[in-house]
């Protein structure tokens, strides 16, 4: 199977279908037939999953290899982000402010930014990698995402000018509003 499977880069590549029914018949494994009621779908191998497995969890699970500095991030930001978010992340009519507002959440005019509101630095990496820059999502390299994350956190005073982020350092950044959220989910459902 490893030879048949490829990383999921685009949907059309998954053309080599693997019929579970056929597999089960060949392997004479009736127990698995009970476990998989309909036998639909093909096995997704780790190699295939890697292409789409882009989520990052608050403990850093999912962060890729690579690194980026505040200084490198400033270059990425000017090239790919400043047109919408402003040269210093102050925001424009097209995109929200990324900087400022720390300490404002309990006031009549709260300013919700990455610095003041976001509870996890890992979410910044996750979101930039999946959805930014707006005109070319998923086009930045891991190094560039680390770098621009570092720069935005630096603009918020949360990292020094010489900081470098990687998979170890990013989850350790403590965001000011880390404890600011309370789930109301327990009132939901059965």
């Amino acid at each position, binding site marked *: 199977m490893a030879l048949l499977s490829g990383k999921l880069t685009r949907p059309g590549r998954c053309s080599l279908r693997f019929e579970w029914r056929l597999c089960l018949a060949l392997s004479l494994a009736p127990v698995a037939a009970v476990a998989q009621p309909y036998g639909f779908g093909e096995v997704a191998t780790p190699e295939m999953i890697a292409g789409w497995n882009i989520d990052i969890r608050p403990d850093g699970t999912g962060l890729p290899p690579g690194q980026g500095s505040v200084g490198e991030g400033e270059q990425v930001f000017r090239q790919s982000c400043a047109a919408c978010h402003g040269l210093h992340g102050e925001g424009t009519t*097209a995109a929200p402010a990324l900087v400022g507002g720390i300490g404002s959440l309990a006031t009549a005019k709260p300013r919700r930014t990455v610095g003041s509101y976001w509870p996890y630095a890992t979410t910044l990496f996750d979101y930039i990698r999946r959805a930014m820059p707006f005109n070319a999502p998923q086009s930045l390299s891991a190094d560039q995402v680390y770098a621009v994350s570092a720069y935005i956190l630096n603009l918020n005073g949360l990292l020094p000018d010489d900081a470098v982020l990687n998979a170890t350092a990013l989850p350790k950044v403590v965001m000011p509003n880390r404890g600011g959220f*309370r789930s*109301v989910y327990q009132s939901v459902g059965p």
Partner: protein
Amino acid sequence: MKIPKRGIGRRGLLAGAVLPVTAPPVAENAELATPPWTRSQGASVLESPYGRPSPFEGRVIRRPRGNPPVPTAASANTPLQDLHGIIVPNGLHYIRDHAGTPTIDPDQHRLLVHGEVERPLLFSMDDITRFPSVSRIHFLECSGNTPLWQAEQVNPRWTVQDTHGLLSCAEWTGVPLATVLAEAGVKPGATWMLAEGADGAAMTRSIPLAAVMDRAILAYAQNGERMRPEQGYPLRLFLPGFEGNTSVKWLRRLKLADAPFETREETSKYTGLLPDGSARQFVFIMEVKSVITHPSPSPTALRPGFREISGLAWSGNGRITGVEVSTDGGGTWQSAVLQTPVLPQCLTRFRLPWTWSGGPARLLSRATDDTGAVQPTRDALIAARGTNSDYHFNGIVKWQVDASGQVQLAL
């Protein structure tokens, strides 16, 4: 019933003449004219292979509330003031996109199910549509619907399309989520599910499995036809009663885990800031709510006399059990008639006969659901949550009718 007179001789004379586009006005006591569409063949059945509304209904369209600076990260509202019953036609279902509507070839679309499962699986649309299916009628409402938290941001010229049009209702057909997850085999520790879209936002939300296993659908059809691109073609998650954005469109991935993923869309966005600076998170359920759609703010003034009041009520917690209507600003209330069927997590149409005598009136509706929850006043909501919550406004709204018959939003 009067049978229109037919001037056969005159029709013969007019044959071949240039016909007026509309029937001429009927002069007082004149013989009723036979309009041109009665004296000719209409359009061929071949002319419109996919039917369109009458050209006279051209004003009934989706519209954004304002002028969106970035139209691919924006919404367009359903014209509730022009609709009847509870089903919203597919071309008028509200849209909320975060990176525009992608054009996806269903043959190339795949759904990946992985994480805490026994067998990570990749499904084609052919696989998905082979599973046993269900069809259910449900509302979908954006949690940002009805932005009446801050008085200074309210435009008194807003219509019900502006205030409540991020709300629609359709029959959704698909495979139960539980069926697809059983195929992959849910591991005992899996309590949350990441749902991810294939759009340019790779829109991502964490969903608690226990709350949705009995209701979630992987939907591919909407009101009988394959779902519209702007609703997630070819596949969307549909979570009845949950805030709209959790019904992730263009669904490409479900990943099971033991905790929420804390994505941007459940931290930075779709959370409700309270006056003390803390924020409500994972506010999934769209709570009991109603609105009068007829009459509602319009450039056309009401005429005195009989006028049916009608509107919509819904609750993400279950069925609507009652709607009360006030025409005097909440001084007195009358029970409205609920149109059956009354379904859970579905729009319910309510009606009340009313005669407008011509004086000022203030129209309100207040819904109750089968959990006993009653739609709150705006004042009660603000007292509980302040004015920076952004989302989940389910308060009672007021339509002010002035002596000239103009209807306008009032706070």
